[in-house]
């Protein structure tokens, strides 16, 4: 985008404007997303419990309910406990919110030659996982600085839970990285182009199982029910945000809904084909950037709708689980992570690797040949497997100790 603006103005101003547009879009995505999701959660929980949910605010369906809630929250008194650590107490919500937003910097919304991404980071998956783990930092600060036992207990539980669930979560996220041969999320999404049979969730039985493990761990790592012990109303009042009120409290909630959205986006891109719909409508209609820039833009727009639609479905499933499944005890939460999710993820990781080696060039449970454009080994493997162009000999042979005479 900066390159586009550079044609019209000074380059420093172009970079500033491009950066501001990206920041504005991301903040709006998180904030408006939270607005919609809170309303959606009320409606879905109402329907599941055979109620109507909000019906009146804003005319039909109560669609302005969250805005009305927001107005109420702004007018609430901003309280701080007497024994609190003032600076940390005030900073904690912003720390959480910043971490939730920062994950969106590296998440692409459309791929192809001109990916829609704020900052194209070539270790994107790794970056997003690293940043998602930082959100709990604000929670710990909030729990400590509130000078309240409920807050401290809630924060400690949440910290233990999130830190534990990052292990299986990372292990699950590695499998698509392995299949795509890249940590670049744009590459991972583009390699699943074509029919839905190319999606990594259907690649083999192991990835199919690991997708559900990923979803469970993602639900736990964003502290949604049935893993919301840290905010269990019946025993811990409200956990780490017991002492918060008004706008500061709502920042925590925006962060929670933001990270729900980002783990669902990650699931959509890693496993569910990202911006590629179940049927490749965009490429069928010729909406690619090879034909025309405007057509490519329309295709990317379709991709954006696809990826956001998949993520919204993911968030809805999380809500459905929340209002259906009873809450686990804290020891059951830990057992689920350490005794079930981690070993299953490890075994499936091994299985996916072996499957890949045994059936190269196949996908959709090994029933179908991968298109040539999708099945590409990464650059390094290619250079190991085949004679490299510039050295005339395989790289393995060029390595010390690996030559025929070196290995005796």
């Amino acid at each position, binding site marked *: 985008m900066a390159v586009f603006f550079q044609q019209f103005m000074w380059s420093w101003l172009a970079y500033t404007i491009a950066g501001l547009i990206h920041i504005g879009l991301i903040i709006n995505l998180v904030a408006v997303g939270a607005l919609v999701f809170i309303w959606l959660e009320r409606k879905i929980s109402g329907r599941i419990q055979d109620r109507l949910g909000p019906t009146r605010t804003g005319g039909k369906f109560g669609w302005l309910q969250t805005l009305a809630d927001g107005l109420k929250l702004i007018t609430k008194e901003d309280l701080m406990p007497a024994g609190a*650590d003032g*600076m*940390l107490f005030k900073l904690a919500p912003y720390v959480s919110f910043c971490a939730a937003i920062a994950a969106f910097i590296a998440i692409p919304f459309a791929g192809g030659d001109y990916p829609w991404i704020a900052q194209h980071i070539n270790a994107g998956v790794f970056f997003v996982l690293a940043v998602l783990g930082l959100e709990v930092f604000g929670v710990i600060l909030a729990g400590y600085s509130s000078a309240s036992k409920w807050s401290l207990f809630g924060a400690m539980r949440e910290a233990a839970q999130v830190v534990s669930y990052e292990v299986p979560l990372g292990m699950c996220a590695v499998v698509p990285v392995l299949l795509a041969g890249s940590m670049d999320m744009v590459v991972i999404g583009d390699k699943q182009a074509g029919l839905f049979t190319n999606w990594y969730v259907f690649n083999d039985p192991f990835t199919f199982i690991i997708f559900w493990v990923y979803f469970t761990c993602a639900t736990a790592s964003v502290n949604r029910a049935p893993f919301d012990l840290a905010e269990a109303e019946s025993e811990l009042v409200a956990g780490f945000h017991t002492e918060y009120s008004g706008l500061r409290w709502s920042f925590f909630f925006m962060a929670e809904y933001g990270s729900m959205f980002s783990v669902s986006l990650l699931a959509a891109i890693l496993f569910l084909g990202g911006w590629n719909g179940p049927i490749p409508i965009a490429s069928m209609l010729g909406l690619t950037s090879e034909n025309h820039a405007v057509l490519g833009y329309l295709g990317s727009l379709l991709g954006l709708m696809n990826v956001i639609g998949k993520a919204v479905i993911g968030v809805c499933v999380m809500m459905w689980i929340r209002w259906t499944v009873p809450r686990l005890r804290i020891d059951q939460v830990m057992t689920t992570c350490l005794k079930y999710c981690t070993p299953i993820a490890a075994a499936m990781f091994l299985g996916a690797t072996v499957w890949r080696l045994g059936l190269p060039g196949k996908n959709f449970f090994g029933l179908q040949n991968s298109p040539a454009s999708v099945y590409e080994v990464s650059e390094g493997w290619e250079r190991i497997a085949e004679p490299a162009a510039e050295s005339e000999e395989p*790289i393995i042979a060029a390595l010390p*100790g690996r030559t025929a005479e070196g290995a005796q």
Partner: protein
Amino acid sequence: MEEGIYWPTFFFLLSSAVACFFAFMVLVSTNIVRMAFYLVLSLAATSGLFFLAGQDFVGAMQLMIYVGGTLVLLIFGVMLTSQERFVRMHTSGGDWVLSLLVGGGLCAVLVLTALGVPEWQAPERAAVEAIALENTATPIGMGLLGARVDTLSVEDEVQRGGMGGYLLFFEIVSVHLLVVLVGAAYLARAKRKQAVATS
């Protein structure tokens, strides 16, 4: 078209200023939780420097390991020292002397090394963009598996012989970490058993 603010320089100065300021705040603060908070900010600003240099993988690594590790430190700091007498730490005179010696020595080495470079060059935009485009984590990953992709461009046979993979170091570090994990689990369990026995 190049006049005005040069953003890489601006963000380099900003990140280093934030890193240095919060590193200093770690030094002067006496509250253990605030200290950890400042440390996290300082380390995060350092990862910003890595991102600025086009090294995304190292930057994400810094976020994951150092910032995440400090997070765990913070958790334990709060959990184990939530009593009032531990939360505020006061440094004695001897500690100050010792830390000044160690820190001053390290700082002197760094300053000497920095001044020893004959010619500092500011990064050029073309070079930075080339790095950002070309640099992927693949060579690092291949190196960890024992195959150095970058040796292909080295002509000299002797030099190439010295550029082995990182497989051995990687394995040693993994085994070391495993031992640390087992040890930590053992210590934690032993403590709990003792507590059960005495109660």
